[in-house]
């Protein structure tokens, strides 16, 4: 306890300097944690992917449609147990800034293949029956203040015109990685209208999602699907849901790399801030350390005191930083919920911050320890504070 007391009091000798160091560390930890959380949120889709789901899309581009007629054919392929499809709608709700993902789907098969989207049975029944029905995620409902029974209008961009929908139900995610900001509706509604307004677009969907019997056979099953449509006018590319999500993420690779570089730079800043403080403390205490050794204190005692002080300051900065991080992350989660659904600091980020703080504290104390032990006692005693 005496040692702990000495460590904390040593850290408090220059209060302003210690406060500024702790604040600097805290801000750096918060920035590092936020960047990590952004990166984690970026990969949330890949984390939520199920191993027994494959996605089949147009081989040339995700933006090109596939024939709806493929559905029954793909279902015949060995290893495919179930199938659903979806189409990106891209409508505007009141203002273009109110972005949220909207998908036209086949109601029953969609919720069968995505059991992690939890919808109350009665609401599900209404949705299946209602051609203009829609199911919205809890996050979306909270954002716009919607409730079951509300009628909303989306202005179509890919499918022009005003589109009226009725909120028949609200889904919740089975786990935190499930995006609760999506809006799904019956694709038959789009098909009906396209028959009248744009017959050439009838019978086309965006992608298929397949449930397979064995995740270990995903490559073989995917290859069979794609082989089925080789040399057709709409060749396919089939991959696991995770690969599909990662291919989207890869579009932002440059951003992710940039963010990672910044996060490493922040670690460097944390190190420099703490190393500078510890170096100043070591310089000021040359005489004191020499005196301690005169009393009989040994190298490992001084190492413990210096390392302890470094860890104390780093942990203090880490704790304050993690507190700030959780507060700021909450604010970011609310502000960017439509872009980063599930934006939340993961426990691994907190653990990483603790590991980094301890590693940096140790590294920052190497030079001061070396200096304290290298100076001869008689030389150290000559130094007047």
């Amino acid at each position, binding site marked *: 306890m005496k040692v702990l007391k000495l460590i904390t009091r040593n850290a408090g000798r220059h209060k302003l300097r210690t406060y500024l160091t702790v604040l600097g560390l805290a801000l750096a930890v918060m920035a590092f944690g936020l960047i990590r959380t952004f990166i984690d949120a970026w990969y949330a889709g890949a984390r939520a992917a199920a191993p027994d789901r494959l996605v089949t899309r147009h081989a040339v581009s995700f933006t090109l449609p596939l024939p709806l007629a493929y559905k029954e054919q793909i279902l015949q392929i060995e290893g495919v147990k179930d199938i659903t499809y979806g189409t990106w709608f891209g409508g505007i709700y009141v203002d273009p800034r109110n972005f949220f993902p909207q998908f036209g789907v086949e109601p029953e098969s969609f919720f069968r293949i995505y059991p992690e989207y939890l919808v109350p049975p009665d609401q599900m029944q209404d949705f299946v029956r209602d051609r203009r029905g829609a199911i919205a995620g809890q996050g979306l409902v909270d954002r716009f203040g919607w409730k079951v029974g509300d009628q909303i209008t989306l202005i179509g961009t890919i499918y022009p015109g005003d589109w009226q929908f009725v909120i028949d139900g609200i889904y919740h995610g089975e786990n935190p990685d499930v995006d609760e900001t999506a809006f799904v509706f019956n694709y038959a509604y789009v098909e009906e209208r396209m028959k009248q307004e744009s017959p050439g677009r009838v019978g086309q969907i965006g992608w298929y999602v397949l449930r397979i019997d064995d995740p270990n056979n995903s490559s073989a099953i995917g290859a069979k699907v794609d082989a089925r449509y080789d040399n057709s006018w709409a060749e396919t590319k089939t991959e696991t849901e995770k690969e599909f999500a990662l291919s989207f993420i890869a579009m932002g690779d440059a951003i992710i790399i940039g963010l990672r570089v910044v996060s490493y730079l922040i670690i460097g800043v944390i190190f420099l801030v703490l190393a500078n403080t510890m170096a100043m403390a070591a310089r000021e205490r040359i005489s004191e350390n020499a005196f301690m050794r005169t*009393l*009989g204190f040994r190298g490992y005692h001084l190492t413990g005191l210096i390392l302890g002080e470094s860890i104390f300051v780093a942990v203090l900065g880490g704790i304050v930083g993690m507190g700030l991080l959780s507060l700021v992350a909450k604010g970011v989660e609310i502000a960017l919920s439509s872009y980063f659904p599930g934006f939340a600091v993961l426990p691994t980020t907190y653990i990483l911050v603790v590991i980094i703080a301890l590693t940096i504290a140790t590294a920052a104390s190497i030079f001061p320890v070396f200096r304290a032990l290298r100076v*001869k006692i008689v030389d150290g*005693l000559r130094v*007047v504070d």
Partner: protein
Amino acid sequence: MNEAIVRTHELYKSYYRDSLEIPVLHNINLDISQGQFVALMGPSGSGKTTLLNLIAGIDQPTSGTLAVAGEDISRLAEGDLAKWRARHIGFIFQFYNLLPVLTAFENVELPLLLTGLSRKERREHVEMALSIVGLADRMKHYPRQLSGGQEQRVAIARAIVSDPTLLLADEPTGDLDKTSAEEIMTLLTRLNKEFNKTIIVVTHDPRAADKAGVIRHLDKGELQ
């Protein structure tokens, strides 16, 4: 009074500045007996602090032998020397060297943290040491709340708290006014007379040296 606590034989110490050897002590032969109060005097640069540092085991001789408290400390490794210092040496510095973040009590307790004494035993020792130097009522004061003389008395309490074999003081009155210096030398005399402490004081103040039973002069590294 006959047992030699400090015995040096042909003790020689030199420093190197770049490649130039600078001799500091020449063939010092010195015996100090248990219970003696010795003042080492001499002009600046005469080597008295170097001799004190060698006796304290915080510096190593270039050649010769140096036995303190029955041990040839010139042969001890750094770790053993640290243990030896904790057991045998109480050091008093000119500028007190109290830790500013610790109270008088905690400063005095510092050397006892290296012993196996319990908390209660440490408290008893510290209270005893502080009462000997007349500062029992200042235990909770920080160094900045004490005068120079009081700080030096705390430093003396710290030097005696572990009951070391030898008390070494390097210019203990050098930073004090006349009255405080007188008090410190009286206190050291008392420790020598009442507690039979062996004390070596380095000083260039003749009035301080007068309190010692033996005065040895050093000049240009040679004992007169």
